[in-house]
């Protein structure tokens, strides 16, 4: 369980009433992550939904070339800033992360037990809808940003530098 004040600090949760805040606090944990540490990896089971309280998180995916492990690449395609949600696959079947998340600097996180959150959704339709509505808006925003990055790379390949496209060997 986390302090109620921590739930109230996250903008994403602004729609929660006091009872819902308490329910969310009860199924959440605080976590500190050192800079450079992986929070979750691509293709791992998604058991927790995360919210960033402080610090920065890079979202990344890897490119593997068969028989050429030396050509392994990590592409950082986005970042999470304080107040934002990440790890949405915890709420979406088959509940496997499609990309990884790594602390870009020391981070303070809230992680919510996804199974217990889904159980809350079964009991409280208003919570379920409001929560998913907020999540959908976050994903839509990220989708639009990614599409803009993609269009920029296609349109101006000579520049090949767009926000959040930090390619690392």
């Amino acid at each position: 369980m986390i302090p109620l004040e921590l739930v109230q600090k996250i903008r994403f949760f602004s729609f929660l009433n006091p009872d819902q805040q308490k329910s969310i606090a009860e199924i959440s944990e605080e976590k500190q992550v050192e800079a450079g540490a992986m929070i979750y990896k691509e293709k791992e089971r998604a058991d927790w939904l995360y919210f960033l309280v402080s610090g920065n998180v890079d979202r990344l995916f890897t490119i593997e070339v068969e028989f050429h492990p030396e050509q392994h690449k990590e592409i950082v395609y986005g970042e999470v800033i304080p107040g934002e949600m990440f790890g949405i696959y915890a709420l979406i079947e088959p509940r496997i992360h499609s990309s990884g998340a790594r602390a870009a600097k020391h981070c303070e996180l809230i992680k919510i037990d996804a199974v217990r959150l889904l159980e809350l959704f079964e009991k409280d339709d208003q919570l379920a809808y409001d929560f998913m509505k907020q999540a959908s808006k976050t994903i839509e925003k990220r989708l639009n940003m990614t599409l803009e990055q993609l269009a920029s790379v296609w349109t101006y390949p000579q520049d090949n530098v767009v926000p959040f496209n930090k390619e690392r060997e």
Partner: protein
Amino acid sequence: MISLENLRRYPFFGELTHAQLISIASISSVETYPAGTTLFQKDQPANTLYFLETGSVDLFYPLLVKADQNDLGEIALNEVNPGDPFGIGSIIEPYIYPATARTAKSSQVIKIEAIPLRALFEADKRLAYLFTRLATKTAVELLDAARVQLAAAIA
């Protein structure tokens, strides 16, 4: 209005009650479009949610326009397969389509009017949750497809 059988063919609608199905059927229609029909364009107000019954629909993202070049074409993002929803911008704020949809071959779709659908959401939060969860899942899949394209473009 369409028949309930039209909706029951889709696993998603299996989660809805009989009363919810009747409400959805009453604001739905079935239409067939020839290949090459643009169903909606990026940045248009999103007033219709679609389910593909038969055929194939492609989602595109138009490229930026350079000063010296008016038409740079578009990026093929994803293919919608029969049974899949599309046009999910119609139930995610700010209710704008993020991409363009065009039929790749002759296609039959279920069209759900999104404005009355969103009004139903106000009265029935369970219905609202189920549709919004579906939209979020579809948006995440589209986001993954865009990431793959991005990786290919910059790799």
